[in-house]
């Protein structure tokens, strides 16, 4: 009889999180880098692999300097073979390593779909609990900026349909670091969705070590008239809309979900019971989207508290256009969000 235990240690979440406010202001990409580097210093089993992560210092400079610190055995430039290196990570994780796989864009993860959807989330189940697959896949998700249809994928709608992995989608540097550190310490596979449009965003990231637990939404703004639910980049559009709405006396709760699986629906329900209205903002297409899921769960669990049907604000249901004006019209934005809220509260 042989017993082989998983040796990755979950972080201690009992410590209170450090303050979000402060003057150690760094970029989102630096927060990601700090998370990876700190964990890599702690555990030699962790390696980073992806296109241009090493010698090029990262296509988006997230891994800048990491090759110098950790060397080519742990910061590994992969050829353009997403299916190959995603699958390599599956084998390496089963063997006992902790791979971080960078997709230059989640759009490119589609060519690795078999590995990341068939093998990654199902390995534990298929093997009857013998092998998990603790890989962190991370990269840019969502429309970048006039990249056209094939390079603008928001994969959370597609991928959250599959049980077996966890999905995190931070909206700011503080959360990015804390969530990525947790992702790296997870026993389960994690899909970590960043946004090219936010990598230069700056914010306070505390110097001390912290881990943000999965499944805990952040109340980014408080208000009693309507609940705005979002995750990732559109959280900023929600904040912008809430600011505008406040000028006309409409106050919103803005919930930044931070993780989609697990989804902190309890926080949403709690807010909806207060406001009676919910608008879910999601940068995926509307059909079978995370927004649809949130609306469904709200109706299942808080129907009697609703004063208005739950509302979705998604991207328009078309392939992503190239032209700047069309792309802007395609994405959720503060104007559309504010209009949806006004409609829900009956203030036209």
């Amino acid at each position, binding site marked *: *009889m*042989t*017993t*082989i*235990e*998983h*040796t990755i240690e*979950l972080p201690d979440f009992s410590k209170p999180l450090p303050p979000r406010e402060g003057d150690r202001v760094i970029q989102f990409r630096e927060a990601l880098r700090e998370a990876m580097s700190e964990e890599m210093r702690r555990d*030699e*089993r962790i*390696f980073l692999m992806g296109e241009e992560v090493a010698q090029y210092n990262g296509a988006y400079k997230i891994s800048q300097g990491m090759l110098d610190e950790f060397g080519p*055995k742990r910061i590994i430039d*992969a*050829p353009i*073979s997403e*299916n*190959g*290196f*995603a*699958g*390599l*990570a*599956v*084998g*390496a994780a*089963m*063997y*006992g*390593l902790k791979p971080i796989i960078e997709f230059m864009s989640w759009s490119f993860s589609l060519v690795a779909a*078999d*590995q990341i959807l*068939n*093998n990654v989330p199902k390995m*534990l*189940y*298929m*093997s*009857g*609990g*013998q*092998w*998990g697959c*603790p890989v962190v896949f991370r990269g840019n998700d969502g429309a970048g900026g006039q990249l056209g249809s094939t390079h603008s994928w928001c994969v959370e709608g597609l991928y959250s349909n599959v*049980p*077996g992995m*966890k999905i995190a989608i931070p909206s700011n540097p503080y959360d990015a670091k804390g969530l990525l550190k947790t992702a790296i310490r*997870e*026993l*389960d596979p994690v899909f970590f969705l960043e946004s090219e449009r936010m990598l230069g965003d700056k914010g306070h990231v505390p110097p001390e070590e912290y881990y943000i637990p*999965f*499944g805990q939404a952040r109340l980014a703004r408080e208000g009693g008239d309507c609940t705005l639910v979002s995750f990732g980049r559109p959280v900023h559009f929600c904040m912008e809309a809430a600011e505008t709405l406040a000028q006309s006396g409409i106050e919103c709760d803005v919930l930044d979900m931070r993780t989609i*699986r*697990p*989804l*902190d*629906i*309890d926080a949403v329900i709690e807010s909806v019971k207060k406001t009676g209205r919910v608008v879910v903002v999601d940068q995926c297409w509307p059909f079978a989207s995370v927004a649809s*899921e949130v609306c*469904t*769960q709200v109706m299942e669990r808080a129907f009697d508290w609703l004063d208005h049907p739950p509302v979705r604000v998604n991207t328009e249901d078309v392939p992503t256009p190239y032209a700047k004006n069309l792309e802007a019209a395609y994405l959720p934005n503060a104007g559309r969000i504010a209009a949806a809220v006004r409609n829900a509260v009956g203030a036209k």
Partner: protein
Amino acid sequence: MSHAAAELKMTTAPAPRTRPNTGGRSSDALPAATLVQWLRDMMLIREFENRCAQAYQQAKIGGFCHLYTGQEAAAVGTIAATNPDDPIVTAYRDHGHALARGMDPGACMAEMFGKATGCAKGKGGSMHMFDKPHWLFGGHGIVGAQTALGTGLAFAARYEWEVLKRPLANPGVTGATPAKKKVCLTYLGDGALNQGVLHESMNLAGLWDIPVIYIVENNGYSMGTAIARGTTMAHDLTKKAEAYGMRGEIIDGFDVIDLYDAFKPLVDWCRENQKPAFVDLKTYRYLGHSMSDPQKYRTKDEVEQFKSKDSIDRMAHVLMNERKNKDSTPVLSEQAFTDLQTSIKEQVRHAMEFAENSPVPDASELHTDVYLNPMPNLSPTAEYRHGAKNPLL
């Protein structure tokens, strides 16, 4: 022969022996008991698969069921050349590899019966034979998908030795034995030759000197498509290896001793030099692709022709006639062979009974083994739990 039949005719007749017996063969050093064990392993697989076919016809096994009958020497001869801490991964025709690697036949059969005592607690089925204590990383159902996994297993084994310089948990390593150089055997069928993931994997392995051996169990057909109808350079698959900068060998998979003698030096070379390799292992399956295959793509004559060089018959003949003890008696007597047959039938009968009598998974097992670290709100409809311990662990 009709035109269509001619087109479908298998174009890769078994290769001649690639290693003439010129002495100094790896197998010469092996004790007779090891060779008898190989025969036993092959006979066990044959008997096991025969009983699987019956159980499938009785609807005790569901889903897809791909039998290994005819290919026994391939798994037995290659696995014999590995160490217990070398990782192994294979495709969906996996019962043979599981048994050759040492999986309990009861756990293997119970898995197919969908029982809680199966190697995957009844959640995997015929195509998903996982055995952690024997360092067998599955059984994989999507053609070629396991080739990337095998590349990753070998990558990790090399990383362990080069970067960590300490052994990770590995059932083949006892106590504090330091990490050794390892190789990963990655099996695939000839159908997987045409999957992109194999080519990406081989490119990575060649590029980074990953000690993985891709073993193409070339039985001539990907389901009903003869190899030359599906892949280029079918007459010399080693050209594909050449393109990825790795050593390629054609090995006759019908004589388990020849196979071992050709394969063992390759494993040793890959291990020592930490390099990949590719093997076109000529073999043949006697039965259909799966249990529902009418086999109209090949002739009965062709099947009979291959059966005439059956690897089990051949090995039995060698051990009962050619290999001699010091006192000139054959290493396997008629009586010992009969006893072997009896004991294997008994062993497989026990496995069948074990599978038959085992309980089905508890209903609560539906929601276990989805997450190692379950937490609230992972699903709108399910609450995931930790499940029963896997019977193999």
